[in-house]
């Protein structure tokens, strides 16, 4: 028996896409040929798909392969619009944060296709359990920007009454569950919601959202265990944007296996999808949502993308990742790719693009003005301090009433 001393392995920092596990996924030329199984396929028959990368748009922007048929041109144009709007909204709110009108902001730059494309596969009544990087789910539904902005500004019109950190929206009517700051906790709640839907003979499905870094959290496992045992109608989304604040996906285990493969040990089918390819996103989302709705249980989807922006306005990525990291990222930009595709098939043009952007900027500027009219975190009308004691319970118990009085209300 060998008695060499052991050595300690710590994953080395590396450009995100250079890792062993990703190589298969980045044989991009083959990706468009990945098969599209029947909706009712057994999990055990599609294990290979967790190590592939489903794509529709090829290097030249053509929609090809078995996953290419899902979208009409109108859907694509509204997808492009939703992505552009999300990006413009992010840019504007980042500026507002820099202007100190609020405390904090988080962008989803580079990942817009995922939330926007996924939302287009859902129906009214379905419920997302999002993280802080799925504003696209709301924007793709044309949820009022002013409402979102008031939340970010924690102003008088904030429906969350100034209680939550910016971007921690809640919008029940939009099928957007209240965001928690605690990573992964909501993943298993989505499973519970879906179990309830099945128990009640409903037809609504749930969508759980998590980042690749947060898959390391314990509740990721809880969600998969319960999804495995009860087969509820839930799509388990893992957004692999390569980074969790400063740590590369290898620190979450991504160098050893794909995140999609996590599903196999639970007998849950998994897809691994180019998350920067709007057409692939929409197609895969439709597949998994239909599977859920047809009572065939849950699907895990790893969406491969890249976090182009800093983690949040509190973050400085130049401290931990190469400057050119995104530039050499092989999956490109989702907005540009969809634009090129639409242009290529004669359904879009540079001029229309420029015009749409201008329109959106104007819409956002108008909304920003309106939102700021109801105050910002630091100026103008304010959330009432007395309201701080509401909603801790459905009705206020005596000790909170006493404390509110102590504060002077």
């Amino acid at each position, binding site marked *: 028996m060998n008695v060499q001393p052991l050595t300690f392995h710590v994953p080395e920092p590396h450009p995100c896409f250079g890792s062993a596990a990703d190589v298969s996924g980045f044989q991009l030329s083959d990706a468009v040929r990945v098969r599209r199984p029947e909706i009712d396929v057994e999990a055990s028959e599609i294990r290979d798909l967790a190590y592939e990368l489903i794509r529709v748009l090829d290097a030249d922007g053509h929609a090809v392969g078995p996953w290419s048929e899902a979208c009409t041109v109108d859907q694509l144009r509204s997808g492009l619009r939703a992505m552009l709007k999300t990006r413009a909204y992010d840019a504007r709110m980042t500026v507002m944060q820099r202007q100190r009108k609020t405390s904090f902001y988080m962008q989803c730059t580079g990942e817009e296709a995922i939330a926007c494309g996924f939302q287009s596969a859902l129906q009214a009544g379905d419920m997302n359990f999002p993280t802080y990087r799925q504003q696209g789910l709301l924007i793709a539904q044309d949820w009022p920007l002013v409402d979102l902005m008031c939340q970010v500004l924690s102003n008088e019109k904030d429906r*969350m009454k100034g209680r939550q950190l910016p971007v921690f929206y809640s919008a*029940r009517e939009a099928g957007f*569950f209240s965001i*928690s700051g605690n990573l992964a906790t909501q993943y298993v*709640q989505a499973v519970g919601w879906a179990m309830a839907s099945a*128990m009640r003979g409903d037809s609504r499905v749930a969508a759980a959202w998590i980042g690749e870094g947060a898959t390391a959290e314990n509740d990721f496992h809880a969600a998969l*265990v319960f999804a495995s045992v009860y087969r509820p109608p839930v799509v388990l989304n893992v957004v692999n944007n390569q980074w969790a604040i400063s740590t590369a996906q290898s620190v979450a285990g991504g160098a050893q296996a794909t995140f999609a493969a996590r599903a196999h040990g639970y007998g849950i089918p998994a897809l691994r999808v180019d998350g920067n390819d709007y057409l692939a996103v929409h197609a895969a989302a439709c597949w998994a949502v239909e599977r859920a709705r047809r009572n065939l249980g849950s699907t895990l989807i790893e969406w491969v993308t890249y976090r182009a922006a800093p983690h949040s306005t509190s973050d400085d990525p130049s401290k931990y990742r190469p400057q050119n990291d995104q530039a050499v990222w092989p999956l490109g930009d989702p907005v540009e790719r969809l634009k090129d595709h639409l242009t290529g098939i004669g359904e879009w043009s540079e001029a229309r693009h420029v015009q749409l952007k201008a329109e959106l900027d104007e819409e956002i500027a108008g909304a920003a003005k309106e939102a700021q009219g109801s105050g910002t975190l630091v100026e103008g009308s304010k959330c009432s301090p007395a309201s701080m004691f509401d*909603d801790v319970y459905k009705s206020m*118990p005596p000790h909170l009433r006493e404390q509110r009085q102590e504060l002077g209300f």
Partner: protein
Amino acid sequence: MPSLTMIEAIRDAMDVMMARDDRVVTFGQDVGRFGGVFRCTDGLQGKYGSSRCFDTPISESGIVGIAVGMGAYGLRPVAEIQFADYMYPAYDQIVSEAARLRYRSAGEFSAPIVVRMPCGGGIFGAQTHSQSPEALFTHVAGLKTVIPSNPHDAKGLLIAAIEDDDPVVFLEPKRIYNGPFDGHHDRPVVPWSKHELSETPQGHYTVPIGEAVVRREGAEVSILAYGTMVHVAEAARREVGIDAEIIDLRSLIPLDVDTIVQSVIKTGRCMIVHEATRTSGFGAELSALIQEKCFYHLEAPVVRVTGWDTPYPHAQEWDYFPGPDRVGRALIRLMES
């Protein structure tokens, strides 16, 4: 009125609510087919089907996590944690999620769930089957925490908890599941049928959350207790012959401060008895509150008789447990001070 054990009363509460409201579901480890290791859900799967009462994987976080999701959907889940000692993996879901969901969404979503868990020692369960973690819940804004001391209250409180729109932690003192226990572990076991509070109305009724009850009126000292300790306090009082007023808190949050304050103003002395470790136990909050509200009426310091600040031991169980001798001696000292 039929005489029930605590277990039967708890089961009956779920039965009544499952029959009345098809949104009520119950689940946990060994809860479905087997009916729970303490048999509290025995028969419910047979009666209501496995969509309403079912076994779960061994994952406390998952159990409470799905309960929160189901609650948000619109159900009324009653989740069982097999022992309170095993609630820690679920603590994040309870504290960060169930307790704050209504607040953070400004009422858009809520978690009207009940988390049942057997607590307390006295069964030679050692450190992982004996804990009383109530103070870990009472510190958390957004939770309600209740703990019955008899079958009548168990049923009424559990029905109230299931109907409550907020998350309720429902602690079940396992030592009194099958009979009242006054701490005299060396004496014959007494069944609930001998105790008047085992008489439990049939069908639906509630014991309101937030209301304490004076179990015995007295003039010399107020004893605050809950769960098993209500019985221990009564035995101790009787044995040392002190005219103590015994208050069964029943609901820790919200707390019935008025009943407590009235009593302490009357007696001028107060003792708190609980089984949990002393430091930062719920007794600390009670003591702090009483001296804030009754300072000028107190003739002696508020006294705490509690479990020691050690893990719950196995062989030394009866040295750890604050039994009638220890409570009695402390009562005498308190009357002398």
